[in-house]
């Protein structure tokens, strides 16, 4: 059973530091905020799932560093942002595996949807000093796919409702989230 943390930022700038010594899931929801997150995987064999969901209206950034300080540690970092207006949104995502840490899994998936002509940037970095690491990263910046919208519209769903469904699916990217704990964020999705 993993420890589950909910973090909600609403129009603020914050730094977070975590020392992970047991399997942990962190749901980080951000409304128009900037944050820096540092995570140390400090116990052999622990896993971390980090879900960052961001609705952005101004110039903001999100930086996260995951340090695999012990062997057999596992990180999955999933960052999804929606840049609503013509502003700047930057993600800097570092996965760090030290030479002393063997057989680690270090993955990251980064996506930003531009709802208008904002400027978005993703820096997906894997800094790996070991040969036996299983690691993947991906980055996508763009709009929702036209083909997805066509498919949904072809079933009678209006463009607005398509966007609403896609935004919900994109920003609430795990089935196990307790909606009660993220009411404000859910309301904000409706306001996009």
């Amino acid at each position, binding site marked *: 059973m993993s420890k589950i943390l909910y973090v909600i930022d609403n129009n603020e700038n914050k730094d977070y530091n975590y020392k992970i010594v047991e399997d942990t899931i962190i749901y980080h929801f951000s409304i128009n905020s900037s944050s820096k997150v540092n995570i140390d995987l400090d116990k052999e064999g622990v896993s971390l799932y980090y879900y960052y969901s961001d609705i952005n209206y101004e110039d903001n950034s999100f930086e996260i560093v995951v340090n695999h300080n012990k062997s057999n540690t596992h990180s999955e970092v999933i960052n999804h942002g929606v840049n609503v207006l013509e502003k700047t949104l930057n993600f800097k995502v570092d996965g760090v595996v030290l030479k002393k840490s063997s057989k680690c899994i270090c993955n990251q998936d980064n996506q930003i949807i531009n709802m208008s002509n904002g400027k978005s940037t993703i820096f997906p970095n894997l800094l790996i000093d070991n040969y036996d690491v299983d690691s993947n990263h991906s980055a996508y910046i763009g709009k929702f796919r036209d083909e997805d919208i066509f498919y949904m519209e*072809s*079933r*009678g*769903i*209006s*463009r607005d*409702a398509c966007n609403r469904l896609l935004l*919900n*699916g994109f920003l609430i990217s795990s*089935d196990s989230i307790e909606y009660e704990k993220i009411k404000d964020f859910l309301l904000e999705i409706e306001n996009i």
Partner: protein
Amino acid sequence: MLEIKNLCCNVKDEKENILEDFSLKIKKGEIHVIMGPNGTGKSTLAKVIMGHYKYEVSKGDILFDGESILNLSVSDRAKKGIFLCMQDPTVIEGVTNSEFLRTALGEVTGEKVNLYTFIKDMEKTMEEVNLNSNMLHRSLNMGFSGGEKKKNEILQLKILKPKFIILDELDSGLDVDSLRIVCQNINDYLEEYPDTAVLIITHYPRILEYIKPQYVHILKDKKILKTGGEELAFEIEKEGYKGVNIMIGNENHE
């Protein structure tokens, strides 16, 4: 029900027409088939009827129930009762089958969908199309096999109850048993709603063993070259499209 008049269409920003002076009339309750070699515009026709963003109509008109639909959005065409069963249905991560179809049903009917009734209807229909009910809560078409995707299309059809159905390469990706189940469900639907018209787009007459058409059209050189009954499809299978050229005396052999 559907009337296509002298339609010319092309990919946006490209000059060459994919269909040229294409005309077709489908009445209530009729089943039509369009066959043709690869790249002749069969799937384009399906997408143009639905209003796909990649194509533009440069000439002609498409009437549905007597009214032009060219200026209607894709969703408004669907709300009028047009349903395109796609050749390769899109995978959409994060949007579950359940919320997708419930939203669609609400938009098509214009009524609030009762969750309990909806779930019960879905479970019953999923059983009919032989889909596992846990797929209801999975992302749309994600991780589905080719056959499951097609069955999911038929599930959507049965829930949304369209008046005009386009089946684009329904048999691709379906094994014999799945094809039988899918076609049985379509036939059941047509029996329940006999005014429904169907346009089948296919390469092979295999599907016509299950769904019996009144008309078979051969699409070639951007328009319909020949129209016949069900037997025409089996002639094509036997003779190929070169054979059709000979039958109609067309000099333009491929």
